[in-house]
């Protein structure tokens, strides 16, 4: 087998051969190799994570018309390593009233909930951890563990700010999970499968063109799930300070921080996989798996960049606005989109491809337009109400 067409398989076979050659049991060797593979993936992700810190800082600097890190190394590239060293040598404090086991478990779970996501990410046509037949649901399941880690961190810190911050964050995560899971069903319907790899293979036309509204809603829900601006209410300088991770310092804080960054990047990746064809790009993925991985990473980066773009340009909103936005607008809209998609999919099942694409696209555009019109009229009414009150107040003076 040619190494370049499937390097991982070749390497794994080679390693297994060596292990069995040492007289090891075949099953044990297989498990060991798989374990090594997972380790490799995690290492790569961690390295990527370090790189992401630099990307984030550099990008935010450009958004804010600054230069960003530029002292350590060329373009400040070595800056993250300096940060890590700083985090490592910082004193690792634990509050006196903290629940020690839970307190220490929380950052690990937080990081793990992100890393576990990569088990189902297809990196290249032949490279994936497991091709789970419920891969799409797995994303939500891992998110549940993330929510658990946050509530654990908030509770165990024995700090009111941390607890309130954790509560808020979890409330948002649980709420926005609903539109998100609903929008995950849209690619499932279109592809007719919950295998991640299958969804990619079926995307001869990117699903963003079939279901643009679903892609947008998924992105909004993902940003809320990540707890990033404009939905970053877990932290607030004047009210909660840093939120659930207020008592954490040193590398434990670093794990939360790195976990968040990697999480954002991962969701960029999922966005790319579910709506932008994953590793596919005009057949280039067939040339070499390396190329496929690069395509996926570039697409994920673009998604990540959009998340950052939103974060640094949109104002944050209050928690009541956010929850109202979710329950009164996004969730009903998500259900409507799901219904419309399922209906159109059934109606256009026998139609020619161009009609299918056009019908799907138009249905989404129309649904979105109607939703916006409804939202606009509601907003107008509310504004009139508020302004009316103000006017009567002014008149009474």
């Amino acid at each position: 087998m040619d190494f370049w067409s499937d390097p991982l398989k070749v390497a794994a076979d080679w390693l297994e051969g060596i292990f069995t050659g040492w007289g090891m049991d075949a099953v044990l060797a297989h498990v060991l190799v798989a374990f090594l593979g997972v380790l490799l993936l995690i290492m790569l992700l961690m390295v990527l994570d370090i790189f992401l810190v630099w990307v984030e800082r550099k990008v935010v600097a450009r958004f804010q018309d600054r230069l960003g890190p530029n002292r350590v190394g060329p373009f400040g590239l070595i800056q993250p390593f300096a940060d890590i060293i700083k985090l490592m040598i910082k004193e690792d404090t634990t509050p006196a009233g903290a629940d020690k086991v839970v307190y220490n478990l929380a950052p690990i779970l937080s990081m793990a909930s992100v890393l576990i996501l990569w088990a189902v990410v297809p990196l290249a046509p032949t490279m994936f951890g497991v091709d789970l037949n419920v891969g799409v649901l797995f994303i939500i399941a891992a998110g549940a563990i993330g929510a658990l880690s946050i509530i654990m961190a908030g509770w165990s810190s024995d700090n009111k700010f941390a607890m309130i911050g954790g509560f808020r964050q979890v409330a948002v995560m649980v709420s926005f999970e609903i539109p998100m899971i609903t929008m995950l069903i849209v690619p499932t319907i279109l592809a007719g499968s919950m295998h991640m790899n299958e969804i990619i293979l079926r995307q001869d036309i990117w699903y963003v063109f079939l279901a643009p509204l679903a892609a947008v809603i998924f992105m909004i829900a993902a940003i809320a799930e990540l707890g990033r601006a404009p939905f970053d209410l877990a932290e607030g300088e004047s009210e909660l300070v840093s939120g659930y991770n207020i008592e954490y310092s040193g590398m434990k804080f670093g794990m939360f921080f790195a976990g968040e960054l990697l999480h954002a990047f991962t969701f960029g990746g999922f966005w790319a996989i579910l709506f932008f064809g994953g590793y596919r790009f005009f057949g280039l993925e067939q040339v070499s798996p390396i190329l496929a991985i690069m395509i996926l990473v570039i697409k994920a980066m673009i998604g990540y960049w959009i998340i950052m773009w939103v974060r640094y340009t949109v104002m944050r909103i209050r928690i009541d606005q956010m929850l109202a936005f979710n329950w009164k607008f996004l969730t009903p809209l998500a259900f409507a989109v799901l219904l419309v998609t399922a209906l159109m999919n059934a109606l256009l099942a026998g139609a020619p491809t161009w009609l299918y694409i056009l019908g799907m696209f138009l249905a989404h555009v129309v649904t979105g337009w109607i939703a916006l019109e409804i939202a606009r009229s509601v907003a107008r009414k509310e504004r009139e109400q508020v302004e009316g009150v103000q006017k009567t107040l002014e008149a009474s003076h």
Partner: protein
Amino acid sequence: MTGEQIIFLITAGFTLGSGLMVVTARNLVHAALWLVSALFGVAVTYALLNANFIAVVQIVVYIGAIAILFIFAVMLTRRDMRESGPQMNKNWWSGAILAALVFAGLAFLLQGWGGFSKTASAFPSGFDAVGELGEALVSPDAFVLPFEVASVLLLAALVGAVYLAFNKK
């Protein structure tokens, strides 16, 4: 003893240990977290039974929603956690005896059943359990009615819960 059996035993031990901690932990938050680990063990059990969908749903529903809800509820009633007082009532010994009796009775009944030590048959080739489950849930010949009734029940329960917990001022 095969690898699968080892994994099962570890999982079962983990699940039952966590379950015991759930009912004995003094700190209610700990009890809820132990519940999470017990439920996680159950999810692994489902995975061992090749029921992937059920396993993932177990994590999504139980850990993602129910456990979180429990923790919220514990914290909302925090004044009354009373870690100092006894966590079990006076009749704990009769409860323990009854639980043991129930287990003994169940075990006794089960070992007398013919299919007790059945082994699993292999899946038919090309069998798609998730697809079959989806078909069964929405097929009029199968379970669409119970499924819809369950969703209506869930909706009614959620509305009722909101109404109950709503702070009427």
